[in-house]
C-alpha cells in the first residue's frame, strides 16, 4: 500500500517542452506539498495545498502550475522547461497544514532531466 505515489519516476525531456507530474496520497490527509531537491540535496518547498486550496506559493516561476482536483491529488504542470528545472521533485502530504500537527509523508520522487 503506497501512501504517497508519484508518476513518472523518471522524466527526460527537451528544453521548451511542457510536462506534468502526478501525485496521489491515500492517507486521507488534508494538505499536500511539492518540493524541489537540487543536485546539492537542498530541499525547497514550492507549493502547498490545503483542502484543494493553494496556501503556499514560494518564489517559483509561473511556468510551474499546481492543480489539485481533489484532496488526494496534487499535480504539477511545468511549461517551457528550462535546463535549470532539472532536479528531483517530491510530493508530500500531512494531516493538516499547521506544523503543530504531525509529520510529512513523502513520495518516492520524480527525477526530471531537461536536455
Amino acid at each position, binding site marked *: 500500500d503506497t501512501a*504517497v505515489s508519484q508518476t513518472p519516476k523518471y522524466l527526460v525531456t527537451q528544453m521548451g517542452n511542457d510536462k506534468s507530474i502526478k501525485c496521489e496520497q491515500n492517507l486521507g490527509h488534508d494538505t499536500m*506539498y511539492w518540493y524541489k531537491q537540487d543536485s*546539492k*540535496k*537542498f*530541499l*525547497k*518547498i514550492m507549493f*502547498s495545498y490545503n483542502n484543494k486550496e493553494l496556501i*503556499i506559493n514560494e518564489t517559483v516561476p509561473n511556468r510551474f502550475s499546481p492543480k489539485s482536483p481533489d484532496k488526494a491529488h496534487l499535480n504539477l504542470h511545468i511549461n517551457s522547461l528550462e535546463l535549470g528545472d532539472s532536479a528531483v521533485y*517530491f510530493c*508530500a502530504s500531512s494531516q493538516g*497544514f*499547521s*506544523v*503543530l500537527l*504531525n*509529520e*510529512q*509523508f*513523502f*513520495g*518516492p*520522487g520524480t527525477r526530471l532531466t531537461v536536455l
Partner: protein
Amino acid sequence: SQQGEEDPQALSIQEGENATMNCSYKTSINNLQWYRQNSGRGLVHLILIRSNEREKHSGRLRVTLDTSKKSSSLLITASRAADTASYFCATGEDSGNTPLVFGKGTRLSVIA
C-alpha cells in the same frame, strides 16, 4: 528564513559505532523534526521533538533539543550499514502557519 543547518555535511563511521549529527537553526520554533533519505528515495520521518521537550528516544535514535542554543542533535547508536543515508532536520515556526524548512542534510556512510 530559519533554515536548519546540519553538521557535519558528511560522516563516515564503522558499523557498530555511534553517529551524531547536529542541526542549528535561527529563530523560535514550535518543533523540530528529523528525516532520513535513502539514495534515490523520498524522505522518511524519524522523530519529532517539541520546543518544550529536551530529549526524545525512538529505538536506536536519540534526539536532543536545546532551544537556548537553537540546536538539536540526532544520535544513532550501534549503527548498521542500512543506516547509510542522508539525514535532514526540519523546523516548524512558532506560529504554526508556515511550512517546514529543511536543512541541507548530513550524508552518513556506515561501513560494514
